[in-house]
């Protein structure tokens, strides 16, 4: 690993970071929640033998019981099964939004920091995007691009790109002024090399922290959009869809909308705890003492 000059990713530091994370209480709790939910999503067909969309009129509105842990809905579909498959959708969208907004936001932030002539232009564009309330922008974009998972990921990513870009830009601007970057520049390193070897690795901490929070926001926002009828169209078992469909029966059959909401809360809580832990360990400037 002689190729890793940035202090942050140097192997010994990396090991220390992992050790500190492993000792961080909220990181541990968040990590366990997120891993369990991910496993549940991946192995959904093995955990349940029901079909998430199969309707069976004979077993409508069954309250939670041994055979149907979370009860059944107005079409006789097993709510537990639908929540499991909903985890696939929600986690895919969360991950997709974190990755897409991460890549584009990082590119925009780094280019702004390194090529100062483009800075004003890129940042005004980001300011413009940020002027829209994030969820309303996502609603407008998702509506324009059509109701499917791909456009939902793009719409939510666009809404969260500006914040990521600002964070990366701010970190890169600090690193850029450090002596070792000056040294690299003087010794003839190209802009690309400086970006790749020095700026990027040193932005990773704040970026990773931001992306875990974007992941959490994306799960909440996807649920909200599905609830409004602008998410993946039913009968797709998205957590937001299940709540929207169960809403009319909320008084008599509370379990239909109760459990998917719990699932959303758990997933978001897990990502938030993970993010808090990462922030304490990776981003000492933002440290919230505990």
């Amino acid at each position, binding site marked *: 690993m002689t190729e890793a000059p940035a202090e942050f990713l140097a192997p010994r530091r990396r090991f220390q970071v992992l050790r500190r994370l492993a000792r961080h209480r909220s990181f541990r709790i968040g990590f366990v929640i997120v891993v369990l939910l991910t496993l549940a999503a991946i192995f959904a067909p093995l955990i349940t033998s029901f079909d998430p969309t199969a309707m069976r009129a004979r077993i409508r509105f069954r309250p939670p019981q041994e055979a149907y842990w979370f009860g059944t809905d107005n079409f006789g579909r097993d709510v537990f099964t639908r929540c499991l498959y909903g985890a696939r959708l929600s986690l895919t969208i969360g991950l997709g939004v974190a990755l897409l907004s991460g890549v584009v936001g990082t590119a925009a932030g780094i280019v702004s920091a390194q090529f100062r002539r483009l800075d004003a232009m890129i940042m*005004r*564009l980001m*300011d*413009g*995007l940020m*002027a*829209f*309330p*994030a*969820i*309303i*922008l996502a*609603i*407008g*974009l998702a*509506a*324009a*691009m*059509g109701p499917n998972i791909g456009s939902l990921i793009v719409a939510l990513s666009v809404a969260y790109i500006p914040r990521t870009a600002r964070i990366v830009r701010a970190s890169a601007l600090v690193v850029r002024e450090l002596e070792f970057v000056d040294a690299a520049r003087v010794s003839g390193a190209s802009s690309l090399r400086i970006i790749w070897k020095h700026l990027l690795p040193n932005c990773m901490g704040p970026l990773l922290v931001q992306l875990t929070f974007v992941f*959490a926001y994306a799960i*909440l926002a996807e*649920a*909200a959009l599905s*609830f*409004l*009828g*602008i998410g993946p169209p039913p009968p797709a078992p998205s957590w*937001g869809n299940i*709540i929207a469909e169960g*809403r009319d029966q*909320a*008084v008599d059959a*509370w379990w239909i*909308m*109760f459990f*998917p*909401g719990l699932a*959303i*809360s758990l997933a*978001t*809580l897990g990502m*938030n*705890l993970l993010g*808090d832990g990462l922030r304490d360990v990776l981003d000492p400037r*933002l440290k*919230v*003492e*505990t």
Partner: protein
Amino acid sequence: MRMLRRLLLRLGQAIPVILVVAVLAFFLMHLLPGDPAAVIAGPEAGAEAVERIRRQLGLDRSIPEQLLVWLWHLAQGDFGTSIIHNQSVLQALADRMPVTASLTLVAFAMTIPIGIVLGVAAAKFRNTWVDSAVMLMALIGVSVPGFWIAILSVILFSVTLGWLPASGYVPLSEGVWPWLRALIQPAAMLALFQIGFLARMARSATLDVLDQDYIRTARAKGVSEWRTIAKHAFRNTLIPVVTTTGIILSLLMGGSVVIEQVFAMPGVGRLIVQAILTRDYPMVQGTLLALAFLFVAINLMVDIVYTWVDPRVRYD
């Protein structure tokens, strides 16, 4: 004089943002897959109806031409016209805004004191059960979907206990109490996330301040602990809080879209959702743009308040 110069400078910085926002909103319509006129007219529309909409929206011109027309209309205060109700976007917004503004402001009025008090208390009693309890509440607040907890709350407070109305909006003109009674529940549900967000922010801001030398000095010279916090720490705690005001208002406005849906309140959020479901894209486009303009203005005001709270801030 100095204040005026700062104000003008800041206004100058807002102009490019306004332009960018206008252009972004323009392209929203062109994201529609395929022929926008056909999409807006709907799958059942005949060729004639599609042509009519195309002409009505000026979609038969070239894109640069359309953009110029769009900007020209905006400059004259024309944000477009609904193709469903034949009502101008601004008129529709003016009809709906009182509802959303009431909801947002009542939620804001709940968020600020509760969030700050919780955050400062958590910092003051750092590492005690108070701190843990507040931080746990804040964490749950930012993790729970607002519309879900709102439905649960309706079941408890409206259906089961019958204390508060389950839906609807009462204009302020019918009296303060009926207005507030209709708003308490939706606003509280809307405020939950923001209270958590602000409490976490206020806590870390207060912790930062409490570590400063001048706080130690105040304590050393015998100022009581509460006085130290109230007189010395609080003003500096306010700085990051003021900075986040714009974000909080923006989050509240976004959240109100969903909350209005749960409580069947005829606000801007419902306007947007209905416009989307009826493919009234000029309405969607115009409303989004007007909201973005509103937030450019709000952020401008936040910046001005900011310079007043923190005299160290300079824009040059």
